[in-house]
């Protein structure tokens, strides 16, 4: 016990003596937490529309003014040539072309039927899909107006309408920040935890100070614990500061209990720190350790469901998320903060992450040799 205390004292001193590391640990995550959530919004709005009007009739003008007044579309230009419009798309000035063919009005009135053409820049599939759907529904509305202008419908309209009403639970204002802030907080805690612990032992190896520890009677587990505990504490401190920031800056009050969050975070940090230690026992230079832990972090974070939904990934990628501690924490954080899930709801997550912690740390202690 006394040995451990001295080891801890040494580690804490080492951390607090390096002001640049401290700055990085505390200041950088906070700045990121304050800035980045503002960028995370991929709601499709302000679709730039280029109208090619070969008809120049009353109807075509009515239709265009109806589209522009809907609020979803910004009329980028109004031309009489498809080529010009296509050029706008090439330059990324327009997202969508609506082509109104010549004699559109005539066909509609005389033949009872007319066709409009749309061309969407589909590089971004989601935007293309939604933009097309919005435009189509506006055209349908317009169609209905035209019809009522010409015919008197009987009491029950022959047009079938299924009214769709939608409600958004847990985040009725659809505030993207509520969704992103807990996720980004997880990333920051993870980065600090895993990188620093991975680099720590390797640094001793590279500089040569590990020799001195190897010749002391310090036990393996004491050494590992001495490395683990300081970063575990730092991780929880960062989490607390992060929660405070999300409350002050974004007004996010966890719907669930803080105890649930901390209980999970405590176990989770053990798992990531264990992973960091494991990496550091298998590498010899800081560069290697960093590259490997960085590679793993990137895979973990990007496949963790922070930005893109796990459900839409291919099967094998979904399998990776099963062994990805980050994805569990992100999910738990969102469940607790937004939906108010309780410990019982996240029981399986907690147990899985606990298993990770045991495996990683056990493995790290097992493979750490007091030899160089």
């Amino acid at each position, binding site marked *: 016990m006394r040995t451990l205390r001295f080891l801890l004292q040494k580690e804490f001193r080492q951390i607090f003596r390096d002001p640049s590391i401290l700055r990085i640990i505390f200041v950088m995550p906070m700045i990121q937490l304050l800035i980045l959530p503002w960028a995370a919004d991929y709601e499709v709005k302000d679709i730039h529309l280029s109208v090619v009007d070969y008809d120049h009739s009353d109807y075509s003008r009515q239709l265009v003014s109806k589209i522009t007044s809907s609020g979803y579309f910004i009329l980028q230009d109004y031309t009489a040539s498809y080529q010009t419009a296509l050029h706008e798309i090439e330059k990324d000035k327009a997202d969508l072309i609506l082509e109104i063919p010549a004699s559109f009005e005539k066909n*509609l009135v005389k033949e009872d039927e007319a066709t409009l053409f749309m061309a969407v820049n589909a*590089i971004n599939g989601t935007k293309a899909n939604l933009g097309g759907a919005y435009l189509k529904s506006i055209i349908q509305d317009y169609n209905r107006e035209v019809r009522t202008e010409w015919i008197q419908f009987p009491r029950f309209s022959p047009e079938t309408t299924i009214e769709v009403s939608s409600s958004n639970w*847990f985040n009725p204002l659809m505030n993207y920040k509520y969704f992103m802030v807990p996720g980004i907080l997880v990333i920051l805690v993870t980065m600090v935890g895993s990188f620093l612990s991975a680099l720590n032992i390797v640094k001793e190896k590279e500089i040569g100070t590990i020799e001195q520890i190897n010749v002391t009677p310090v036990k393996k587990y004491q050494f590992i614990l001495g490395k683990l505990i300081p970063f575990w504490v730092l991780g929880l401190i960062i989490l607390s500061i992060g929660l405070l920031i999300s409350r002050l800056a974004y007004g996010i009050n966890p719907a669930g209990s803080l105890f649930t969050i901390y209980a999970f975070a405590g176990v989770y940090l053990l798992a990531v720190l264990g992973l960091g230690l494991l990496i550091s026992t298998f590498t010899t230079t800081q560069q290697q350790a960093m590259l490997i832990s960085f590679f793993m972090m990137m895979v973990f974070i990007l496949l963790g469901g922070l930005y893109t939904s796990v459900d839409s990934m291919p099967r094998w990628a979904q399998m990776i998320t099963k062994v990805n501690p980050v994805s569990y924490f992100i999910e738990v954080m969102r469940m607790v903060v937004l939906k108010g899930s309780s410990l019982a709801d996240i029981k399986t997550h907690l147990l899985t992450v606990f298993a990770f912690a045991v495996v990683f740390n056990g493995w790290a202690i097992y493979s750490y040799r007091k030899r160089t």
Partner: protein
Amino acid sequence: MKQFRAFVKKEFHHILRDKRTLFILLGMPVMQIIIFGFALTNEVKNSKIAVLDNSRDAATSSLISEIEASRYFDIERNIYSYNDIEQTFKAGRIKLALVFPQNFGEDLQHFNKAHVQIVADASDPNVASTLTNYASAIIMDYQDRITHDRHLPYTINTEMRMLYNPQLRGAYNFVPGVMAMVLMLVCTLMTAITVVREKEMGTMEVLLASPIQPMKIIIAKAVPYLLLSVVNVASILLLSVFVLNVPVNGSLILLSFESILFTLTCLAFGLLISSSTDSQQTAMFISLTGMFLPTIMLSGFMFPIENMPLPLQVISNLVPAKWYYLIVKDVMIKGVGIESIWKETFILAGMMFFLLAMAIKKFKIRLA
């Protein structure tokens, strides 16, 4: 010149002797392109949903089977009471619930009017709004078909064409972004520790005492990494084309040239980090936390830049990956030539020279 050559040779030895690092540096981008190219997409598909069908008639069951048939939805379960919805959401099992009221089919038949409720778990607003839109679109299509069968007068038909990406593959949007991200991170990381490492190991003393000028030291350090980056660029391009099936519609030479310009920018940035820090840990942490999240979030491939608040839109102009992403998208997918991207190219080149100049200026010839 001889001095410079000798120095470059020394750097090469450094890199080539550390086989493990070399392996990581060349293997990492390959792995990342493959994993992210396949797995990252902001398409939403196979989302689990629940259905609460209070009506249970022909209309609801045909509508439900249509929803199930779409690639966007998997019906996870049926629920039987409105109160169950919340519990199912809380356990995180479903993203959306469809509620059909009693007499749905009857209303539809007799009054031509019926009602459906969509309840989305908006804790993820992006997915929630996309799914709500998809579900409504399927319901609208169903409604249209009924209407269409009756041949109403004065009908406006619409025909839609998807340009550049007719199958709406997520890869077309994401692969250029993943390329930018991977190149940026690998190249910055490679050079970020080269200078600071010499400081930490104490070999900097020797370098500073030698007659070689700081500028030469810096450039000599960049040369071997530039060659490594060229290998990486080649492997990334090959993988994108042959494994991820993203075509190169424009000129391959132009694309390679732009990629090398971008890697040079990143190498210069790494050198700047390296010469302005004192320990490897700091350098790594800056290039990771400082680069990773901002590159992902501000380069425009995850989140549209036009949706961001104005200050962030301004900041995003400082992210080199943003410009490279625009270039790659234009050249690879739209197939345009240099005349449409000279502005982006010019900006990247400007960034590169600025960063390199800063790195040389920051290089201290005295140790603290």
